[in-house]
Structures are given as structure tokens and as C-alpha cells.
């Protein structure tokens, strides 16, 4: 047995009495049952704990506000799986980055909705639920974004820094509020937060905005005009990596070195000595760690600190160097007292390019599988998991997708999304789908048809048959014979079809009419499913022929039905009785042969009856008598008719 990395989750059964015995457990299709019991008590008497607790996991699936997230990401997921083959090289990478961005925008949209929902929610419990989700979604987007930069786009030294800057700017929102406040005031340069805002801009490398604000200060304070001009100039000239290939890294590094030295000179000359604010800005430009750390509150996180440090001390940082800077940044920022939170651990693992660690830590920290399943799938498409360990890598993706999709199946409508996820799990997807789809309650015909279509499209014959049988049984229990028949035909279940046909026939005997004529009359080749069903269909055909006055055809069919022995015993009397109107037509319909045939049947029937039981009542006896008479008369007329014809 392997030792887990973290203690197993403990779920305490609420209200259960620890002293009262053991816990009995059972799996439901989507929930689990727990009840108090005492094993080994083989006699009666004892404590009467009589409650059964129903537990459900995957609660997140039920949060309505997340529905959109699940639905839309499903679309992105499918698009990704299907587009796989066609692209290669650069365009492939661009495509994968776009997919990543799409996922992120879905997360952001969901976050917005959740935020709105939290504000407008009346129910405190709901409001609480929504408010807790917002920071989680925000963290998810933060992590995903970083993974996109480092893994999907795999930004190289140069662009890497620019991307990281964007990342920080996007995710540290506190600054924006402050900025708005200062800019919208009458005289921004007099606002108490003015320098905070300038510093914040500088820390995020937003030079233009910083310079713009500084210019306001300069016009307000002509005394500092000289200092301002120099600082402004330095800020304007700061070399930054380029996104296109306008310059090589070496060129950039050279420029940067010169610029750095220039800043150094100004600082050392005491140019900014009379303004502590501007001096501190200059120190920041020089990448002075202490100066930067002083602005801790403006950065709020160690990863902001990291990016700022990199911007001002090592802008051409290479991806592989990130881990060292990240570690030291976190240590410097958090200091001794703080231990890293789960989010910190995850981000650190990302900076260290330990993809498996990222996935693992996210799995532990998050309460549902959505995030890790989709992110891992994307990373797998980037061929990043395979490079670690081929067997294990692809298993990881599938493992997570299976978990996520299984969770969807516990939901009354989201299960449909789960189906496609299983489709893209080559090893176990099919088996999981088979096991899960059987458990979807078939509450309505519509739902059953939906499930059926899914199974039929995937050639899941066993499940198709099973569903049809279940629906047939349900219909039969509710006396909906037509529906039951349709379902058993679809299930190709001949035994059931026979059962239902018998029911139809029995009902006819009692009531004198058939229900569901449309169905029976249009069976087509399915009537061959069972003998009894064939009989039923043919019997109806007999009725139709009679109705159309095609008497000789009808007669032939009737006789065939009687003599071919596919008619059930209880129906023979009815069939013979049906012959009466044909026998009493003005025209002779049954030939002598046919009449003899009928007579034989009648004798068989009466002989059989005498053996087993007397006729039920006088009506039966009378019918038999009438039949005998009619048959005799017909025979006479037929003989004459046939004799006459032969004579001529």
C-alpha cells in the first residue's frame, strides 16, 4: 500500500453516534449511502438508529452559475480534439494558444456572472456560495494564464518578460481602483495617493502612464522640473525586449547595460536627492531589491515582485532561469513568518516548469476536476506530458477527463456533456460510458430516445437493447401497449413482442377493438420478430381486406391463419366467428376445400374444449351451432357452384 502525500479526506457523518456501532455503506449510481448498524449482531434487539444518510460528492456540478463554464468549455474541448490533425508547426502553436485564450475568456465570463450573481442574490447561502467561487475562478484564470505563457506559448527570453508583465497587469486589480480615484480627482498631483499610483505604474512597467502622471506633478512644481525631465527621459529610453525580431537579445542586452549605467550615474550624482519619491523611482529602475520591496503593499504578491525584479534587473531572463528568481522572490517577499499557500505552491511549480507538480497541486487544492481536466488535456495536445513518461503522461490526461466526465453524469442534464469527454478517452472511455449511461433515469420517452440515440451512434448494442427493454416493460406496466410494442420491436425482443401481442389479442377478445391500430397496421418487416406478432399483423390485415370488401382474399387469409397454427388457442373461437359473415354472404366465398378446412378447425376446437372444460356459457354453444349450420350451408352452395362450373 502506498503512503498518500496528504492525509485522506475525512467526512464525518453528521449526527451519528460514535458509540452506536459501525457504518454500513452502499454505492448508489451517483450518490453513496451510509447508515449506522452493528455488524455481527445476529439477533434482534438493540439500539435503534434508523437513519440512512445519502451523500453526494461533486457538489460543484450543481452550482447553477458554473453551468455556463461547463457548457462553453465543452465546446472548446471538442473543437480542440477535432482540429488536432490538420495543423502543424507554427500555426499549430498559434491555434493552441488561441484555444487557451478561449478557455480563459470562458473562466473570466463565468467570474463576471458569478460576481453579478453574488451581488444580486437574496438568499445568504447562495450569496455565500457565489462569493466563495469568485476568488477561486480568479485564481484559476491566473494559473491558466501563466501556464499559457510558459507551456503553451512557451515564450522565449525577451517576449517572456513582456508576457509576464501583461500577466501581472491583468491580475492585480487593486491598482486600478486607486488609479481611477487619483485621476478623477481635481488635482491629481495633490492627491495623497498620487505617488502610490506612479510607483504602481513603474512597478508594472507602465512607463507611459507613469510619465503622464509625472508630467502633472512637474507642471505643479516647477522647482522639480529639472529632475523631472531627467527621470522622464530615463523612463522613456528604457530598453524593452521586442516582440518581433527587430533586435536580437544581445543587442537589447547591450542597450540595456548602457541605460542601466546612465541611471546609476544620475543616482550617484545625487540628481534626485531632493525628492525622495523620484529617487526611489530611480532605484527601482536600477532594480534595487530593497527599494522595490519597500513598495510591498503596492505589489501585494510575490509574483508581482518577481516580475518587477526581472523587468529591472534581468529583462532577458530565459525560461529555465525563472525558477531561481521565483524561489528567491517568494522568500524575500514572504519572509520567514509566512508559509506558502496552495496558490503559491502551484505558481512556483509552474515557474519551475514542473508540469506534473502543477497538475497535482491543482488537483489537491481545487474542489472539482474541471480545471485540471481541461488544462491537462490542452497540455497533452502541446505534447508536453509525453516528454516526461509516455505511458504515464497519456494516462494522466485520460484519468482526469474520466474523473471530470464521471462527475457530470450525476447531473440530470450535464451528463450529456460527459458523453463527449468519454468519447475522447481512448482506453477506458467507452467502458465508462457504457457503465454510466445505463444509470441515466429514463423518466420520459424523450429522454430515453435521447440516450438511445447516443448509444446507437456509438454502436453500443447491449445498452440499446437494455434501454428498449426497460422502456417496453415500463410501458406495459402502465398499460400503454402500443408504446410497449414499439420498444420491444426496437429491442428486437421477440419474447416480449409475443407477450404484448397476446395482450393486444386478449384485449380484443374482451373489448372487440384494437388500440394502436396505426402501429399494428404499419409494422412492415418488423412483424416477423415473433410469430405472435406476425399473427396480430395478419389478423389486422384480414380486417382490412374485409373492410375493403375483398372477400375472397380475406377468406384465404383467414383460413391460412387458422391452419398455420400461429394463432393462440384462446383466439381460435374469435377467428372462426369471424368466418360467419363471410359464410353468410350472398356470394359463395369459401370453396369446398376451404369449407372442409374450416370444419376441421371447428371440430379440433370443440374436441379440445370437451377434453378440458365445458363451454363457458350458452353464447359459446350457440356460436358453435351457428357456425356448424353456416358451414354446412356454405358447403352445399359451394358444391353446387363448383359442380356447375365444372359442368360448363
Amino acid at each position, binding site marked *: *500500500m*502506498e*503512503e498518500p502525500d496528504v*492525509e*485522506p479526506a*475525512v*467526512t*464525518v*457523518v*453528521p*449526527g451519528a*453516534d*460514535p458509540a452506536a*456501532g*459501525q*457504518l*454500513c455503506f*452502499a*454505492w*448508489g*449510481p451517483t450518490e453513496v*449511502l*451510509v*447508515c*449506522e*448498524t452493528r*455488524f455481527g*449482531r*445476529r439477533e*434482534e*434487539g*438493540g439500539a*435503534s*438508529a*434508523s*437513519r*440512512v444518510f*445519502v*451523500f*453526494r*460528492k*461533486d*457538489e460543484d456540478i450543481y452550482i447553477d452559475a458554473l453551468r455556463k463554464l461547463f457548457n462553453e468549455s465543452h465546446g472548446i474541448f471538442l473543437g480542440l480534439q477535432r482540429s488536432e490533425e490538420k495543423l502543424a508547426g507554427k500555426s499549430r502553436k498559434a491555434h493552441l494558444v488561441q484555444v487557451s485564450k478561449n478557455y480563459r475568456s470562458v473562466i473570466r465570463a463565468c467570474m463576471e456572472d458569478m460576481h453579478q450573481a453574488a451581488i444580486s442574490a437574496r438568499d445568504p447561502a447562495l450569496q455565500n456560495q457565489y462569493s466563495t467561487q469568485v476568488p477561486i475562478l480568479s485564481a484559476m484564470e491566473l494559473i491558466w494564464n501563466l501556464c499559457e505563457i510558459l507551456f503553451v506559448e512557451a515564450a522565449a527570453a525577451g517576449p517572456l518578460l513582456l508576457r509576464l508583465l501583461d500577466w501581472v497587469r491583468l491580475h492585480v486589480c487593486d491598482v486600478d481602483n486607486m488609479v481611477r480615484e487619483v485621476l478623477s480627482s481635481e488635482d491629481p498631483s495633490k492627491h495623497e495617493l498620487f505617488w502610490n499610483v506612479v510607483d504602481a505604474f513603474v512597478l508594472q512597467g507602465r512607463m507611459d502612464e507613469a510619465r503622464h502622471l509625472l508630467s502633472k506633478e512637474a507642471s505643479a512644481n516647477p522647482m522639480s522640473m529639472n529632475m523631472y525631465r531627467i527621470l522622464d527621459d530615463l523612463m522613456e529610453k528604457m530598453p524593452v525586449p521586442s516582440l518581433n525580431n527587430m533586435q536580437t537579445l544581445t543587442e537589447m542586452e547591450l542597450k540595456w547595460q548602457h541605460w542601466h549605467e546612465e541611471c546609476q550615474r544620475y543616482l550617484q550624482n545625487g540628481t534626485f536627492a531632493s525628492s525622495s519619491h523620484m529617487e526611489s523611482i530611480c532605484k527601482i529602475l536600477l532594480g534595487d531589491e530593497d527599494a522595490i520591496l519597500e513598495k510591498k503593499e503596492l505589489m501585494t504578491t510575490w509574483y508581482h515582485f518577481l516580475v518587477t525584479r526581472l523587468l529591472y534587473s534581468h529583462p532577458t531572463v530565459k525560461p529555465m532561469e525563472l525558477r531561481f528568481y521565483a524561489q528567491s522572490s517568494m522568500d524575500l517577499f514572504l519572509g520567514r513568518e509566512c508559509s506558502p499557500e496552495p496558490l503559491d505552491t502551484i505558481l512556483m511549480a509552474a515557474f519551475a516548469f514542473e508540469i506534473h507538480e502543477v497538475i*497535482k497541486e491543482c488537483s*489537491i487544492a481545487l*474542489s*472539482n476536476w474541471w480545471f485540471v481536466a481541461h488544462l491537462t488535456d490542452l497540455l497533452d495536445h502541446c505534447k508536453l506530458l509525453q516528454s516526461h513518461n509516455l505511458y504515464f503522461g497519456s494516462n*494522466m490526461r485520460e484519468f482526469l477527463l*474520466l474523473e471530470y466526465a464521471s462527475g457530470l453524469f450525476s447531473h440530470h442534464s450535464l451528463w450529456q456533456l460527459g458523453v463527449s469527454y468519454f468519447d475522447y478517452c481512448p482506453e*477506458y472511455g467507452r*467502458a*465508462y460510458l457504457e*457503465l454510466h449511461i445505463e*444509470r441515466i*433515469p429514463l423518466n420520459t420517452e424523450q429522454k430515453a430516445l435521447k440516450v438511445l440515440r447516443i448509444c446507437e451512434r456509438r454502436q453500443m448494442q447491449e445498452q440499446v437493447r*437494455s434501454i428498449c427493454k*426497460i422502456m417496453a*416493460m415500463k410501458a406495459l406496466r402502465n398499460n400503454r401497449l402500443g408504446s410497449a410494442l414499439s420498444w420491444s420491436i426496437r429491442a*428486437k425482443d*421477440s419474447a416480449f413482442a409475443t407477450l404484448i401481442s397476446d395482450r393486444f389479442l386478449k384485449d380484443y377478445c374482451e373489448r372487440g377493438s384494437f388500440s394502436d391500430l396505426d402501429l399494428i397496421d404499419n409494422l412492415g418487416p418488423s412483424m416477423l420478430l415473433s410469430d405472435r406478432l406476425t399473427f396480430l399483423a395478419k389478423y389486422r390485415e384480414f380486417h382490412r381486406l374485409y373492410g375493403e370488401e375483398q372477400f375472397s382474399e380475406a377468406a384465404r387469409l383467414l383460413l391460412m391463419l387458422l391452419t398455420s397454427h400461429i394463432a393462440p388457442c384462446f383466439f381460435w373461437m374469435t377467428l372462426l366467428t369471424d368466418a360467419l359473415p363471410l359464410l353468410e354472404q350472398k356470394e359463395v366465398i369459401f370453396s369446398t376445400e376451404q369449407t372442409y378446412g374450416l370444419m376441421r378447425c371447428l371440430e379440433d376446437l370443440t374436441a379440445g374444449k370437451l377434453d378440458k372444460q365445458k363451454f363457458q356459457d350458452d353464447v359459446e354453444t350457440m356460436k358453435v351451432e351457428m357456425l356448424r349450420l353456416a358451414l354446412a350451408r356454405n358447403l352445399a352452395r359451394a358444391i353446387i357452384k363448383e359442380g356447375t362450373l365444372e359442368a360448363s
Partner: protein
Amino acid sequence: AHPQVSVINTVDTSHEDMIHDAQMDYYGTRLATCSSDRSVKIFDVRNGGQILIADLRGHEGPVWQVAWAHPMYGNILASCSYDRKVIVWKEENGTWEKTYEYTGHDSSVNSVCWAPHDYGLILACGSSDGAISLLSYTGDGQWEVKKISNAHTIGCNAVSWAPAVVPGSLIEQPSGQKPNYIKRFASGGCDNLVKIWKEEDGQWKEEQKLEAHSDWVRDVAWAPSIGLPTSTIASCSQDGRVFIWTCDDASGNSWSPKLLHKFNDVVWHVSWSITANILAVSGGDNKVTLWKESVDGLWACISDVNKGQGGVSAAVEGQQNEQ
């Protein structure tokens, strides 16, 4: 991850004595419970509710287990009891009634398990008289009985069917023709053994004896199939051990045990989740533990459901062992 686990319903069964088993039906819409108060109760538990649908009386002793049959046969429930009887209940026209009663055992019937629906409506029953009976519905209210006497000396405590697997090719059979299934089930008994039974020419034969426990086997559970050629059985015993048995080949000849864990107390029940990826183990130590197999084949405990210190509901952040 550990998804939040929370109670969505607490069903007050009003049983007057200890509950011995509680089972959800196929779709999770109905709950059946049985108790020492001799009754079997059925509740409608949709949408977090609890409506008593039936209070079934017929047993004359504590009822040990209930089992739901596959919905294609209708709403059917089997129960077994200390009173040596097995009763099959059926819902007909909206009411639940006894549809069959089997009294062929000489001692308490401890376990009932329905066979895969592909085989028809067949119920296996294990009894303290050491025998296992197989009740098959043949139509028109008739049941056929086959008995394996002396399946386990002293008594049989548990029975569990193997999932249906069609041998050979999986070409669709023409309608009406039944594919050639090889029916198998596992049983656990007071002889400390787990046995595997196979039907051959209409007769049940002992195919395998699995020895590893040193005390009575309390429960066996054959894992659902996820398409792999391996078969997996979990067994638990009075000796505190839970073993996972696996057999690699289709011929079913070589089973090898892996010890999941040795607990400090008797382990009474083991059961598999529907996709067989989690095994639940209920023991004498007031808790239920959930175990999962990681990608490299090792088993680890992922969750612990217990009664705690005083009934405060809490779910602690857990771990996921997906390495």
C-alpha cells in the same frame, strides 16, 4: 481532488430496530432498507425527499440484505433473512407484493445477489447452512432452483456475480438467440475461502479456491468490467484483511492476491463503485474507507467516512493520488 462531499438527504426510515442493509435502485430514485425489525421498506428519494412507498412484511426474523434487480425486469427487489427465507418482491399495478418465496435453506440466508441482466433474472443466495442456491425465473411466475450444497463448510457469507462477458467475437447475435455466456460468481465463507463458481452444461462447478484469509470471509465483491482482460475481486474477512484478487487471462486460471490493508478489527463489507475505480471498505472500527488504485498499480486510501467525535459535519481538504 477531493470534491466536496456533503449530505443531501437523511432518510428517517422509522425502522424499529437495527438496519442491516440499505441499497439504492439502479437510477438512484428509490431506496430499499431492511432491518432486524423483520421488515423491508422502500422509499422514493428523488430530489432529496423521502416518501415511504412500501413496508413489506413477510420475514420472520432479522432481514440481512436487499438487492434490486435490473429495471428491464420491472421493479423487483430480493431480500434474505435469518428466518432462512429468500423473498422476491415485485411492484405490480402500483403496489409491492411478494412474488416468490424460497424456503429451501436450513439456516439463515446471509447474502443475495442478482446476476447480470444478460443472463436473465437469476438470484444467487448464500446461507449459513453452507449451501448456495440459484433461483432462476423461467416465466409465468415460475422459478427454477439449482442448489450447490456444501459450497462452504460451516456457512456461506457472501455471493457476488462476475460481470457478463461474451467470449469470443462480439458479432451481434440475430434476434432471439442468446449469446454463449460463461456464467461465474464468487462466494466467501466460514471456511476462510473465496470460491469461484462456473456453470458448465447447466451445472455449477467449483472453478477456483482462493486461499489467503485466516478467518471467516465476510464479503466478496467482483468488480465491474471496464473492458480490460483482467478480472478483479475484493474480499474481506474476520482476520481484518482486505485482499484484491486479480486474474489476467481469459481462461480464469491464475488469481493472485494483493493485500490492500490490514485493519485492526473485523472487516465486514467491501463494495465497488460503478466504474470500479473506488473500493469502499466498512469495518468494525466505526468508519468506511475509500480506496483507489493509482496509475502504477498501488492502492491508497483516499477518504474516510466516520462518525467523528460529535457530529459536526466537516470535509477536510483531501488528496488525490493520481500519480
